[in-house]
């Protein structure tokens, strides 16, 4: 079945395109891209209204799908439904499940669930160490064979420098990056918020930015030593960004990602609008305005490689406790695109083209998966975005099983019109009404 997406603004930086182009989808592939395409035979024509953006499918490289073991928070089915509603055609899911994804069995289970849901593509990320316990390497080769695209002990850093070195060397054999949750654990202690004035005033134990940067420096040095690739997950502190820049300037293979909440919010959210709101508690924590602004600057000047949500669903009951006891994390799949358009593109920080690099091109490159490109012959993973759509965030109507977001009720400019995976429209936003 052929489908012609006609007259839309195609933003495809990998192929140097930003303009009005037609795109022909045949089956699960992109057949042709060009201007004023004429198509023989049966073809469904979809007129893309002006104002929408057609781009390579967005890839969220940091998502917690919670299955197996924590299905009360999210499942692969609900998580991928949330992903496509958020405009993502693929997600990479973290291994801190129960049991941990440190063996082929769990990897295959996740992939099976993804196939059953048949919505977004799922790229599992395997554990660095068995049980994520930080002692012995997991069977990384087996994980690779089963379908993992990277390894991480996310939730924690890789426990020792020695183990991180080995992980970089070993995973390097398979061309896999090590994704690192940078955190010096003794400095973090039992901290629950950014170490700054607001935490002091509210009586919350603090986590300094240096807890993140110290570990990043360790890992960058090891990446240099081994020639391996390290990806700094959910970067939050300006000191960490400086470390990444330093590493890149020395030729180390280091990349980094920032979450939307870290370039939008600051630790002021701890006290207002809701004091001690557990939907503002995540790790790494929201930091101060200087850190937030540094993230924006890094996104603008290219030091930041990717935007990823660190989508961390938690059940309502788990978050409805004292701040100290609440689990870390907020959801992100269904708010990311709106926040990116509203706070980056419309705010003049970056262009749409750069946004597509951050959300599609670079994640595909870092994870070494197909995607990030609308070239002829590529899989038809396409996101159709609505940069001017007026959106009011509503936690109650989200497709994720969990509601832990601080953005409930926010009005933003920018949203998703439709999401196409392998040529199939897996999500269509009724508010835009595209007949795709």
């Amino acid at each position, binding site marked *: 079945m052929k489908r012609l997406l006609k007259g839309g603004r195609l933003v495809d930086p990998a192929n140097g395109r930003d303009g009005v182009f037609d795109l022909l989808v045949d089956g699960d592939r992109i057949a042709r891209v060009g201007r004023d395409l004429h198509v023989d035979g049966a073809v469904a024509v979809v007129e893309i209204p002006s104002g929408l953006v057609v781009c390579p499918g967005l890839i969220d490289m940091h998502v917690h799908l919670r299955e197996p073991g924590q299905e009360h928070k999210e499942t692969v089915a609900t998580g991928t439904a949330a992903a496509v509603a958020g405009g993502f055609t693929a997600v990479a899911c973290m291994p801190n499940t129960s049991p941990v994804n440190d063996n082929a069995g769990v990897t295959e289970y996740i992939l099976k669930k993804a196939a059953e849901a048949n919505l977004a593509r799922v790229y599992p990320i395997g554990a660095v160490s068995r049980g994520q316990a930080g002692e012995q390497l997991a069977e990384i080769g087996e994980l690779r064979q089963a379908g993992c695209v990277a390894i991480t002990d996310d939730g924690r850093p890789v426990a020792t420098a020695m183990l991180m070195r080995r992980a970089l060397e070993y995973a390097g054999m398979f061309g896999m990056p090590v994704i690192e949750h940078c955190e010096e654990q003794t400095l973090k202690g039992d901290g629950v918020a950014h170490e700054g*004035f607001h935490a002091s*005033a509210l*009586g919350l134990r603090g986590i300094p930015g240096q807890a993140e940067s110290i570990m990043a420096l360790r890992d960058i040095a090891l990446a240099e030593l081994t020639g391996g690739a390290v990806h700094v997950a959910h970067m939050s502190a300006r000191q960490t960004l400086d470390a990444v820049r330093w590493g890149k300037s020395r030729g180390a293979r280091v990349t980094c990602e920032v979450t939307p909440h870290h370039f939008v919010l600051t630790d002021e959210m701890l006290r207002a609008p809701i*004091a*001690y709101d557990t939907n503002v508690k995540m790790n790494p924590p929201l930091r101060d305005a200087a850190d937030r602004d540094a993230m924006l600057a890094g996104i603008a000047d290219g030091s930041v490689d990717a935007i990823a949500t660190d989508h961390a669903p938690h059940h309502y*009951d788990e978050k409805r406790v*004292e701040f100290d006891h609440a689990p870390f994390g907020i959801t992100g799949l269904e708010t990311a695109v709106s926040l990116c358009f509203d706070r980056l593109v419309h705010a003049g920080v970056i262009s749409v083209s750069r946004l597509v690099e951050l959300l599609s091109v670079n994640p595909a490159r870092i994870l070494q998966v197909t995607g990030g490109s609308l070239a002829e012959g590529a899989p038809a993973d396409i996101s159709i975005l609505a940069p001017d759509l007026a959106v009011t965030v509503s936690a109650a109507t989200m497709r994720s099983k969990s509601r832990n977001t601080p953005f409930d009720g926010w009005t933003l400019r920018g949203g998703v019109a439709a999401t196409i995976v392998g040529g199939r429209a897996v999500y269509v936003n009724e508010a835009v009404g595209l007949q795709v």
Partner: protein
Amino acid sequence: MKKDLLGIGDLTRDEIYLILDTAEAMREIGQRPIKKVPTLRGKTVVNLFYEPSTRTRTSFEIAEKRLSADTLNIAVAASSVLKGETLADTAMNIEAMAPDVIVLRHASSGACHLLSRICKSRVINAGDGMHEHPTQALLDAFTIREHKKRIDGLNVTIVGDLLHSRVLRSNVLLLTQLGADVCVCGPSTLVPIGIERLGVRVSTRVDEAVRDADVIMMLRIQQERMHGAFFPSVREYFNTFGMTPARVARAKPDVIIMHPGPMNRGIEISSEVADGPYSVILEQVANGVSVRMAVLYLLAGGVEGD
């Protein structure tokens, strides 16, 4: 006044003075032969204490009974928490019995805010984690005003474990609101980041910090802090920061020495100072009842209409 008293941070200057003035009137009731007025008759007050406390809880209980309220004490043992009943569930169960006021003491900062969002009852913070202990600061201010007739312009020095102290935060907020000149002093490891932004001077040398002080307030030091490497030993802590008569002599001759209790004699304060002529520590305890009566009276009025 608002529905709850969660912290000094929520009170205006006028509200603080109203509480202190009302406490004056309440104090007189404690001097009568029948130490009771019918003001809160038929009102139920629940003292929900997640942390053990003799002093604060007794003080609240006496205050409540003097106002003729019906008092209920719930001391939540650690085991109930371990069994998994959340604060939210406990709160909703208590709320089902329609108390008018809940007095909460809890080990987590912000627990009162959570309770206040869940319950319609008025909530009084009797100490939440490291955040605030508003009635303590109010009774401290009451005591200071008794001796010094005013608060603005006074030199107040607060010494101790600043980082972990809710008494510190409440007192700093209150004293700076009323115009006192506040100096906070403690080891660098125990100074909260950004505390100067609350309008206080910070010092790590107690001999300088107490110079010309009108009021010296000592904070309790927990010995367990040694395990977090905050200071090496209680011996060294006492030598460097302990309040001794020699240090007291550097303050003004009519200085008053305060402590929220319970005291660690020989660690943050020597017995000679604690029991000496400048100490008003026991008065603080007595004033606690009057101040808490004032808070209960001011909060427990105004009803379902608002």
